């Protein structure tokens, strides 16, 4: 589904990703862990098409298409979804209109008929229940005045609405209390299918108690320096990142 080959990316001439290689198949959950500043969020942003970053080398193909050539909206329409670490507040844009516009532009791209108001609202109700989000939130401006937990939950709600093939959760656990964490993780798990894949970017192992990864990768200084199964996450929790740093310094 997703093939990342030797991906290098820089911001303001400063190289942050230094040769990422990663293959993801449908149905898989990949966790990307690593100390602060290792490039985790950069990887998520580059995949979503944020143009602050310049891709200096390598390739990313998604379902056979070179998505580095695609605009952010076209990546979304192809089925990539980024749950933001810091969801943006947009006063004056109603959540309702925002979601319907997004959904219908994605449908149009895929040659589907737009959803009418009735079907749209039906879908909203259904998905809201899935992520246990307060229906009042959708009548408000997008993320405006939402608490940290509400914003994160709203990200998962949007993901439920847009049904991406590849979801990238960027530090979705940061700032969540244990109840909110459980609800968000439940939402993600319910949306899991053999046809879609998830990348969970996180600093802590905590979220991985709820979203069980098939693979865990450790990112350090812009490279994946170690991969394993879920036991690697537990090991990191116990020992911290220092031994990984030492190991990788020895290798390089």
């Amino acid at each position, binding site marked *: 589904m997703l093939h990342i080959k030797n991906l290098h990316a820089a911001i303001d001439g400063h190289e942050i990703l230094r040769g990422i290689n990663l293959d993801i198949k449908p149905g898989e959950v990949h966790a990307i862990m690593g100390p602060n500043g290792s490039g985790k969020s950069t990887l998520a942003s580059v995949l979503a098409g944020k143009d602050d970053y310049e891709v200096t080398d390598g390739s990313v193909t998604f379902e056979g298409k070179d998505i580095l050539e695609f605009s952010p*909206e076209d990546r979304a329409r192809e089925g990539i979804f980024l749950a933001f670490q810091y969801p*943006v507040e*947009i006063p*004056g844009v109603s959540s309702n209109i925002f979601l319907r*516009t997004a959904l219908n532009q994605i449908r149009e791209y895929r040659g589907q008929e737009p959803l009418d108001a009735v079907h749209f609202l039906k879908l909203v109700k259904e998905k809201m229940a899935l992520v246990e989000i307060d229906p009042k939130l959708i009548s408000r401006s997008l993320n405006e005045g939402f608490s940290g937990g509400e914003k994160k939950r709203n990200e998962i709600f949007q993901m439920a609405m847009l049904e991406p093939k590849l979801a990238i959760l960027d530090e979705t656990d940061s700032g969540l209390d244990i109840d909110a964490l459980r609800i968000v993780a439940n939402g993600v798990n319910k949306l899991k299918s053999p046809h879609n894949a998830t990348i969970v970017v996180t600093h802590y192992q905590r979220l991985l108690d709820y979203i069980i990864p098939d693979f865990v990768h450790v990112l350090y200084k812009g490279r994946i320096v170690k991969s394993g199964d879920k036991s690697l996450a537990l090991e990191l929790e116990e020992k911290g990142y220092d031994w990984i740093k030492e190991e990788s310094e020895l290798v390089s």
Partner: protein
Amino acid sequence: MTDQIKDNFNSFEAQLNGESKLPWHKLRKEAYSAFESKGFPGPKDEEYKYTHVGRLFEKKVHYSIPKDEPTKSPRSVPTTFHEEDAIHIAIVDGVVAKISGSAAIEQGIVVITLREALKSHPEELNTHFGKYADINKDPFTALNTAFSYEGVFIQIPKKKKVEKPIILHYHFRNQKEGSVQTRNLMLVGPGAEVNIVESYSATSSQAFFGNHVSEIVVEPNAHLNYFKLQNQGSLTCQIDNTFIHQKRDSEVRTFTFTLEGKLIRNNLNIALDEENSTSHMYGLYVAHGDGHIDNHTVVDHRVPNCYSNEIYKGILDDNSKGVFNGKIFVRQDAQKTNAFQSNKNILLTDTASINTKPQLEIWADDVKCSHGCTTGQLDEKQLFYLRSRGIGASTARAMLLHAFVNDVLDNIEIDFLREFINSEIYKRLD
């Protein structure tokens, strides 16, 4: 420099048979001398520092009595609104051409031409006409007064709640370069409620110069919503001077929407003459191409316990220029005044610009006043967030611009009007 205008004035006067004894006639003469002594504002005129307008008016403009008499040329209302939604007045090329049927005009409401009012409401004209539009301050007001002839007189009787808005449709279709000057007097009686709209449009392919003055008196406990909708093609130049006087317990909301024009200058002057009055001033300007839009507002707190709030927002594209100058005067007696002002702008290009200046002059000591202005670009983070959800770049931009202007538009209470203005703005933004 103004010889041509002087000739115009002399021949204009000569055509006004039998008016030499009227006070109006005297006022015209005074106004002309006031204009003559001042002339058009030059580059050093502080009030017109960013808007060099005189030369345009000086060279190309002829002033005379409009030739068409209304009865001879009944024209349909060039409207985008449904006939039955409002009371319509068509002012075509500066001539009041049609006032919609008497059935539409509810009992007691007076909507007639200024010339008719001269005969039927001489007392009101003597009391109010030219009493608020100060000919010694703004040369365009003086010029308009000197040539005042055509316009609309509106009187809303005591306690009358006028259900339908009264819409003045100014339409320019003349295919020659030209100018129009209209002059309105609107009296909103005690306890009355009314919505008045002045809507400007053009099908003319020529440059057009409009110099409009309206005097409005809002009597005790009356409510007025007053709209200006300027959407008249990229060739039009317009100077608008509006003078509103508010009496005790009155409430006024003004809405000034400028969507297109070569050079638009609005002088909105609100005087709070009596206690406990409230004014809301909303403005929205969307400029593109080489358009130039200038809003000068004055709210004059003359007495205690009044409230004023002003929100003006601008979106400037291409090489367009915006000017905002908001004056708040709080006189020494005007204790317990609340006065707020905000001007926010988005520049869509590097070549668009805005000059914004709040100007507070406060002589009272027990007041709450605030002002603020911001100028910036569209927020890249917000844009990326929308696009990352599959929303195309141009739609995302339009959504953000809409969000920016919504807190102005949301204050329009008349549904069809809000929808119309909304859709006009959509057309501009998309």
